[in-house]
């Protein structure tokens, strides 16, 4: 088991190296100069400009630039934002908790909705409940998050005036009032992201449950005289969850990158917002770091999915 995990972790490293190369070459191949603003500035003499370029190593060959970038990434040095002059790591530290908080809760919400509904749907296959649930799930993942987000703002902010449409990192008021305000502003971003994810998950849970409820071991459990409830939860669900857990772990990076869109709709000051604003500002160091962090998350959760699958399913060989 330990050997299997080690091997999986080791195969993740070349993937990350390759991804960093892809990100770096996209930027290196791109037209445009990060210091083009400087060139237009008349108060900066050409010699100084040349020295800045040399200091930053912009004119070095691309492999050397890549090597330098990779080395600094490895030592945890992410450089400075061109725009704000602040260390990139500080910007990320400011933004990351908000994104993790929103997408983490959205993720929990989706699991909490999808598992019970998916199980009930499968157990009562072709019932009214099943039909309604599968139809709603189908509608749910055909509606992109920015559509649901905007429609929710129309309904809950503009028509009903129940919830704020803008997420603020600084909420006025302490104590219970402030807390309530913080909860209120997080409801819509979490719901939009969570419901979309839940819609996709319900189908997986239902399909996986359906495969199991007709198996012989479930019939055996029933014929032993077990209560239907424990047949479903203790026997069928346990086995049905093995592929589902993998799908859940694999979908987590999607929830986090999905936050790029929701953060834009509700103006949540998270990583996605940082990415979009720094793309617009030509802020290369921030863009590279954020994109690379997203890749690390994707690779990490793929790894987690594999390991969980190995732990849960004893039929997997670690050969």
């Amino acid at each position, binding site marked *: 088991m330990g050997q299997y995990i080690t091997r999986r972790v080791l195969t993740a490293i070349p993937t990350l190296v390759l991804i960093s190369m892809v990100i770096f070459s*996209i930027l290196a191949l791109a037209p445009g100069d990060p210091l083009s603003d400087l060139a237009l500035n008349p108060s900066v003499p050409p010699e100084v400009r040349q020295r800045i370029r040399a200091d930053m190593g912009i004119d070095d060959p691309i492999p050397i630039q890549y090597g330098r970038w990779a080395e600094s990434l490895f030592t945890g040095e992410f450089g400075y934002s061109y725009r704000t002059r602040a260390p990139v790591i500080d910007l990320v530290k400011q933004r990351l908790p908000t994104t993790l908080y929103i997408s983490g809760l959205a993720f929990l919400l989706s699991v909490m909705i999808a598992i019970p509904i998916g199980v009930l749907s499968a157990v009562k296959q072709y019932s009214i409940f099943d039909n309604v649930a599968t139809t709603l799930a*189908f509608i749910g993942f055909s*509606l992109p998050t920015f559509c649901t987000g905007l429609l929710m703002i129309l309904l809950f902010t503009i028509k009903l005036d129940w919830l704020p449409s803008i997420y603020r990192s600084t909420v006025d008021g302490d104590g219970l009032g402030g807390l309530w305000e913080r909860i209120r502003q997080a409801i819509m971003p979490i719901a939009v992201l969570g419901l979309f994810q839940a819609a996709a998950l319900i189908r997986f849970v239902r399909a996986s449950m359906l495969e199991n409820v007709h198996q012989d071991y479930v019939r055996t459990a029933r014929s032993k005289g077990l209560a239907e409830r424990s047949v479903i939860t203790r026997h069928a669900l346990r086995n049905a969850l093995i592929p589902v857990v993998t799908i859940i772990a694999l979908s987590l990076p999607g929830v986090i990158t999905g936050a790029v869109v929701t953060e834009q709709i509700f103006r949540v000051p998270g990583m996605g917002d940082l990415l979009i604003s720094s793309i617009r500002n030509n802020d290369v160091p921030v863009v590279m770091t954020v994109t690379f962090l997203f890749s690390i998350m994707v690779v990490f959760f793929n790894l987690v999915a594999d390991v969980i699958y190995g732990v849960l399913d004893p039929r997997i060989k670690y050969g």
Partner: protein
Amino acid sequence: MAEASDVRSQPAGQAALDVGGLRAKKPRSLWSDAWRQFRKHHLAVAGVFVLVFLTIATLIGPLVWPNDMSLINFSESTQGVSLDHPMGTDDLGRDIFARILWGGRISLAVGVAAMMVAILLGTMIGAIAGFFGGFTDSLLMRFTDMFISLPSLPLLLLTIYLFRDTLRDKIGPNLGPFVLIVALIGVTNWMPVARLVRASFLSVKEKEFIEAANCIGATRSAIMFKHIMPNVLGPVIVAATLAVGAAIITESTLSFLGLGFPPDVPTWGQLLNTSVNFMEIAPHMVIFPALMIFLAVLSINYVGDGLRDALDPRKTTG
């Protein structure tokens, strides 16, 4: 349901009475079986109708509809639904219905074109990996795994931002973004198809009829394209259908974030992007484009669902 079973039982009853009639009937092909199965999925059939309607409307609509999509008229800005403007007008007084028609043409075209790029890449890579196996296979699958690990949305945003202006200057203001967006969506979406095709190739190439084809001296390419490929077609068609929907969503997401088509190209996502600032005074500017995206994607997903039922060889058709 009662109707469907009636239709099915009737020819069987007749055939039992009249054996001569049975021989005269055309033999049932796999495709007609699939079609019979597909027709039973009512929502999928409805989806086909909606898609055909949308395609015709966006192709012919802009030619027939009298209002110009780019005619600015400030005296009519942000008007609600009326007979003259069935979907209202936007902040500059332009007719939203005309813009929806024209934008739908582009949104649907992007969806289909990006699907073709993804399917072509995925089928090629999957077929080569599955057919040749061994080292080629593991190399190509590593490559596929790496692409799956790429964070596609951030990379799409970044690449479009960096290369948009260059391509616009090189190929033209309309074709530039189109080619870029189609190529990028295709390049970030081929991986599931490749895995699917590889898996099918691996299982089909061990079958007896391939051995037989080998024995009669069929060439490698004949075995690959004439013998294996038709057996892989079913899942690829399903994946292709669903890929159109995914591509439409991706395009509208990019345009919504302001990194897709330029503001003067009214794709559905782009219409939503401009509508955000006018939500309070003109909710129809949000509702109609959102509805169109939803309608198109929902229909495509239902058609995909119906095709999956119809083309699944494990299902016996009645």
